[in-house]
């Protein structure tokens, strides 16, 4: 199977995954108590006005009618309008996607850059001070929620170092450096727990690889220990890490939602939480759709990477 066919197949699969996700979300948000009309007009609103508003928003129609209407509009690329502001959902999403993707992307990079070298170091220096130190830090990262790390970062670094703001986001078109400085702390906050998980994976995976026969073969060939480790070991050790890096991406995306609030950044996460509080159904559905799209897409990328680093795996599983 060629790469194009494989990608096509995976994208078709993804459509089904996202369809399932948005369907669940559609009904779940409506099952939660709370009425958008009442939330807009206040608790002592006139019943007639409430009814009129519900009529206007289409909330009086049977659920399945609402569902299919929404689905039909979605197929034409129309995500609907926010109940609260009347603005198109897609426009709001486009506005906030930048900061979220920036933070999540940089967070992943930070996690990988920390996790892979320390994981290797930790496995090579097993039961030595380097191992205990990096393992402890990794457990710290795994145990602490991203938003808490964010708060600590604000208190310790943000307050004392003027170069990194503790609040808000600067778009990249206002300069790379201000952009970078505005996301470095939140990115670290989401990257740290993810990095902790990956470091543990890297460590155990490398420990396993170190005991493999082919590593002994490599040494018996007279290669020095660095070549044995990085030429013969690294790629093998990365195979399980890459798989799990895709699955645990949820940690990053989940972390971003909370961290954006800590750092006062108007991103997808803040939009999502705000829209849930206001029962802004179309906006919730749109946001979840985008987040699940990012997750699914990232996993396709991970799977492609996986086939690249593991020659035993073929696209679509065999010929």
């Amino acid at each position, binding site marked *: 199977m060629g790469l194009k066919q494989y990608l096509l197949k995976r994208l078709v699969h993804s459509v089904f995954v996202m369809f399932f996700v948005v369907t669940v979300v559609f009904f779940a948000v409506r099952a939660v108590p709370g009425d958008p009309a009442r939330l807009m007009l206040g608790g002592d609103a006139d019943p007639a006005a409430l009814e009129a508003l519900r009529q206007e928003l289409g909330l009086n129609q049977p659920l399945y009618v609402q569902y299919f209407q929404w689905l039909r509009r979605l197929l034409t690329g129309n995500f609907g309008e926010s109940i609260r502001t009347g603005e198109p959902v897609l426009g709001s999403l486009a506005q906030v996607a930048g900061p979220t993707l920036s933070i999540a992307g940089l967070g992943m990079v930070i996690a990988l850059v920390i996790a892979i070298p320390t994981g290797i170091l930790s496995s090579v220096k097993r039961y030595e001070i380097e191992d205990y130190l990096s393992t402890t830090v990794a457990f710290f990262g795994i145990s602490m929620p991203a938003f808490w790390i964010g708060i600590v970062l604000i208190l310790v670094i943000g307050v004392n170092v003027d170069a990194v703001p503790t609040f808000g986001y600067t778009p990249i078109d206002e300069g790379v450096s201000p952009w970078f400085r505005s996301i470095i702390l939140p990115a670290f906050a989401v990257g740290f727990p993810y990095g902790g998980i990956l470091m543990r994976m890297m460590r155990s995976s490398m420990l396993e690889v170190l005991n*493999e*026969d*082919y590593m*002994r*073969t*490599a*040494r*018996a*060939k*007279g*290669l*020095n220990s*660095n*070549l044995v480790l*990085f*030429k*013969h070991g690294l*790629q*093998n050790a990365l*195979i399980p890490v890459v798989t799990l890096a895709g699955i645990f991406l949820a940690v990053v995306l989940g972390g971003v939602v909370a961290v954006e609030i800590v750092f006062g950044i108007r991103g997808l996460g803040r939009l999502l939480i705000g829209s849930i509080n206001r029962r802004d159904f179309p906006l919730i559905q749109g946001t979840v759709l985008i987040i699940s799209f990012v997750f699914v897409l990232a996993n396709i990328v991970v799977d492609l990477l996986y086939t690249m*680093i*593991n*020659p*035993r795996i073929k696209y679509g599983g065999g010929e």
Partner: protein
Amino acid sequence: MNEPLLDVRGLTTSFETGQGRLTAVDDVSFSIEEGEVFGVVGESGSGKSVTALSVMRLLDDAGTVEADEVWFDGTDLLSLSEAEMRSIRGGEISMIFQDPMTSLNPVMTIGEQIAEVVRHHGDTGERTGFWSEMRRKYVTGTSTESRSWRRAIELLETVGIPEPEQRATEYPHQLSGGMRQRVVIAQALAGDPSLIIADEPTTALDVSIEAQILNEILELSEEFGISVMLITHDLGVVRETCDRVAVMYASEFMETGHVDDLFEDPHHPYTEGLLASIPRIDDDREWLSVIEGTVPDLIDKPSGCPFQDRCDYAFELCDRPLVEYELDSTKRVRHAVRCHRENERVRVDESGHVTDVPDEAVAALERRIEAENDASNDPAVADSGIRTDGGSPTGGSDEPERRGDRDEY
């Protein structure tokens, strides 16, 4: 006669474990001549592989290797730095491991796995530094125009792999078990070694492939004048392939000699037991004979013969430290046994059982043990030739000279 290619004296390897010190190789001495096939036979866990890995200095920090001497082609392997040792590994001495499924790297093309040996030990003019190798591995791939790659293809052809150009670009999982072991052989030949240590090279293979692979190893080693140390647990394989053989049991070499002498005229009860347990085509026995009992625990191993609890011939000297007895010096090749039954003053009846142990036998043994202890404590004394044990079939005539050389280092 020439000096042996590999001459190992008093090799002892132990591991620190939670339960105590495990002696995996206990005072083993042997030598391998140029062009010779030397077999080491023994059951699993007897220390065959550890012996090989100790010589290669491939054990990790957990193992402690001590030896009086490990001479290889005029160099003392024990005195080499790690960097010098690396040029021996894969270059002068290469290894073939048991399982080709796991001993080849699954994420590297077989061409590169062979080519890297050529690059590191040959004269290809290609860069072998860390970053050059990393770039080759992760960015550019191995150039199919490079000398090392072309040599790899030649080697694949030499070991009988069809379509070598195509195969070289494939990964180990794309090859059958027999093909993979051929790749491992090609890899072992790539550094142009003078000794190949083959550690159970056919154990993981189909029986139908076994003979092919063994022949491949033997024919090629003969063709290129390479000595082979063949580690196996298969006496049939030893009989067919080896010139000399050592029988290993519970970390010690029990009997060493020419393969014919050993098979025709085994002197050690363990060798005898092993040979008796081989089923024969003309057998009318209902049960194959077995050696009763189990291998002793190698942790905190007591002195004395490790086989005594399972031995039909055990007598009062068996818990004394073992020494090596040389048999019948008229034999072409030295035949040595570590069993006190061979003490010339001990009287043995027709069936091989000990009938009488005179006091002078005990006294002679004690003198010898004492002399050996002195010898191993002080290498200078060893020159005097008190030690009659020694793996070299040539005797000790040229040894003092070489030892003298060593003292100058």
